[in-house]
């Protein structure tokens, strides 16, 4: 079926609009950080309460992730400027994600297939998932000021995707015409997008740690970041969602490879690098359960894991030749 040029054109416009909105949103996050006070020392000490009702006395203590939970600061009208900027930033991110989604849907409609057939489309999808994953984690953790740090890699990836890696809308080759394309590639790229969040959180964990050991390091950035405990929990809770998803994606890939290439596993460069990434994330989960490996080392492993994922995305698609070379570039 021929490509619908008008839809393809509009998809491209939506893509550019999404990138623009993300950049704008990034500035709002940065403005929030600039106008806001330093991150409050999040209440690590247990909150105590005494409630008396109907002749009953109740006292309680609880700690947990709750210190990280988003707090409503002030009511409408008397919110500080930073708070208002931060809320605008989040609203812009949501808008950007909506336009971004539109761009992907239009692309799919234009080419009459699942819009994950080449590197440009893949990259776009990964970024959308990363933004959505971050917005979901935002509901559970007080991490709004991290927005800019999540959007920076998203912006870089989308910029590269829209310029260097851009591929005209077109149908895919017969080997890719399978419902496994939908399952395998969607799952793997979702996992990749989700794992961007812990990657960013772990980098910030290391920065925060360096700042706490020596306050001269990252003097401006360090105080604005959430506590290391929050960042660690954010990284862990996102990883334990992304890792099984990635595992599932690799299994789907093996099933597809069995029916397309004659074997379920053949040490193709892409497969090998996926294996390496899997092993690194497995090491991350183990390190959090090993004395002496928690904290900094675990964070480094998580960053390494995401680096391998990105390496797999770029290097394997663009530089080596393997069965997975569907980048559509060059």
């Amino acid at each position: 079926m021929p490509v619908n040029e008008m839809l393809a054109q509009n998809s491209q416009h939506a893509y550019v609009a999404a990138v623009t909105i993300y950049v704008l949103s990034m500035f709002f996050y940065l403005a929030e950080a600039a106008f806001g006070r330093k991150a409050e020392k999040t209440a690590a000490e247990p909150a105590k309460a005494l409630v008396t009702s109907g002749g009953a006395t109740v006292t309680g203590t609880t700690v947990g992730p709750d210190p990280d939970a988003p707090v409503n600061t002030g009511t409408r009208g008397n919110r500080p400027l930073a708070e208002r900027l931060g809320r605008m930033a989040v609203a812009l991110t949501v808008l950007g994600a909506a336009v971004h989604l539109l761009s992907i849907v239009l692309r799919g409609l234009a080419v009459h297939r699942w819009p994950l057939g080449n590197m440009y489309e893949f990259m776009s999808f990964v970024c959308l998932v990363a933004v959505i994953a971050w917005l979901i984690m935002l509901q559970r953790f007080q991490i709004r000021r991290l927005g800019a740090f999540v959007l920076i890699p998203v912006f870089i990836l989308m910029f590269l995707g829209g310029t260097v890696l851009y591929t005209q809308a077109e149908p895919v080759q017969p080997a890719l015409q399978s419902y496994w394309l939908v399952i395998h590639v969607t799952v793997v790229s979702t996992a990749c997008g989700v794992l961007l969040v812990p990657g960013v959180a772990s980098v910030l964990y290391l920065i925060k740690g360096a700042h706490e050991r020596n306050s001269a390091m990252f003097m401006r950035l360090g105080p604005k970041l959430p506590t290391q405990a929050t960042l660690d929990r954010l990284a862990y809770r996102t990883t334990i969602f992304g890792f099984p998803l990635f595992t599932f994606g690799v299994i789907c890939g093996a099933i597809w490879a069995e029916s397309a290439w004659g074997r379920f596993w053949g040490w193709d460069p892409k497969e090998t690098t996926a294996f390496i990434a899997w092993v690194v994330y497995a090491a991350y989960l183990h390190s959090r359960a090993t004395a002496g490996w928690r904290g900094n080392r675990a964070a480094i492993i998580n960053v390494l894991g995401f680096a391998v994922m990105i390496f797999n995305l770029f290097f394997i698609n663009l530089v080596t030749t393997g069965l997975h070379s569907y980048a559509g570039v060059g």
Partner: protein
Amino acid sequence: MTATEAMVTEQEPPPPPQSGVRAVLAFLRNTWRGLTAMRTALVLLFLLALAALPGALLPQIALNEPKVAQYITDHGWWGRLLNKLQFFSVYGSVWFSAIYVLLFVSLVGCLLPRTVEYARQSFVQPVITPRNLSRLPHHLRAEFDSTADVDDVAVDVRKQLRGWRLRQDVEDSLAGSSINTAGQGATRVVSLSTERGFLRETGNLVFHFALLGLIVAFAVGKMFMYSGQVIVLANGSEFCNSGVLNYDSFTPGLRVDGTRLDPFCVKINDFQAGYLTNGQPDYYNSNIQYQSGEDLVTNTWQPYDLRENAPLRTAGDRVYLLGHGYAPQFTVTFPDGQVRTGLIQWKPDDTSTMLSEGATKFDPPDVTNTSVLVTKQIAITGLFAPSAAYQDGLLTSTYPGLRNPAVSLDIYQGDLGEDAGTGQSIFTIDQSMLANGRLKQVDKANLTPGQTTKLPDGTTVKFDNVQQWVSLQVSHDPTQVYVLVFALFMLGGLIVSLTVKRRRVWVRVSRTPADDDDQGGRTVVEIGGLARTDQAGYGEEFTRLSARLLDAARGRSPGQAATPTGGKDS
């Protein structure tokens, strides 16, 4: 440390036999402990990741042998060194195998004691309720007027703890409890100790055992697998999986000698490729017939529509449609009137236009004298274009489909060098024969189907038409289903072990003693909670659960009362 110990024992002049044994035992024990420690497993995991990396970066023999040869030639001593160190067959190399065998042993060593511990814990009751519940990370204490007996309250609370492993104790001594017992003697105190999330360890063990199973199944599969490639003309030609020699290339597993392949035959009736207007392929399919098992005896053929992503599965093997190409057919009429027809696959040089090259070779008929034969052999080489166009007189192809087929031929006559004893490519002629003058170019011609060219000695070469060929791959892997099952168990175990939290809740129910001016005293309920693994997310659950337990203790149905707890999560 263990090494030094062993050395010391060796150097001591009169080694008492017992200490020698002991040293060996200590060495073994320490090695075992070191190997099965989590830290070692972590280091081994990293080594595995690192060792797998060259396989992604360097060409591998198993995937692309000519590329490896090219790499070694290009990189001189460095390439040869890498080759010697098995860097071009990483996944079969000694060092890669060593790492995963160590990891395997480490995994087994880690799993054995954990399984024993798991089995033991499944029969053990939850721990005794701690004396001071207010020291726990999650704590709640409530006091209210009630005349209910502590045992009745405990029963009500228990009803809310279905699904929790539970033990109930009656505590006689109140030491450590915050209830004032002065003067009244011991009051009855009931405590509940409950635990949940045992499934986490179950999932964890399932994951690791499935991983072991997967590795074993993978290794066994590598022993008994085989795969072979063959090119078959799509004109009703047959291929039978009866022997290794029927294949163009064949890769056996370690325990496969090629004598007992699963018997089946396929017949390739046709091949179609659909292309978009820009030449991009849209679909491939081939109508084939196959026979296996009973059908081989009765010679019955079953139809099958072979496509990409849809292999034929029969007789425990899979047959894949991997590629396709063209085979131009030539008829050579020799000066004495004898006719020979040649039909052999040419290989596509450019898969986007299917411009192909090849060499169709002929021996002159009825010539037994080798010295005459080697002057009369004919090789028709050149280019084939399915949709011909000429750029500066050179044949190119504009489209991969058969719109306007043509060949551009270089015809050679002389000695093809086929008796030299070395294998020859079916797609080219031996260039050294050309260089030493024993093979000469005798004609050059551009032909379309039906056209003929005449060689100087009167031989005519006719380009008849063109046929298609398909390249098939036959694969056999008896354990791949097991690998899939183990992989799915791994996934299930992983999800369970990462989502289920192990946590404990304790409840202590007691009564304040009855005062003179108070008829019954008050009921005191203390609740404590502890997440045994990652803390994340337990606070919210504790808040909900403790509110429910408290409501039950007060004889209300849950949810009736406001949830009176501390923290921000209310």
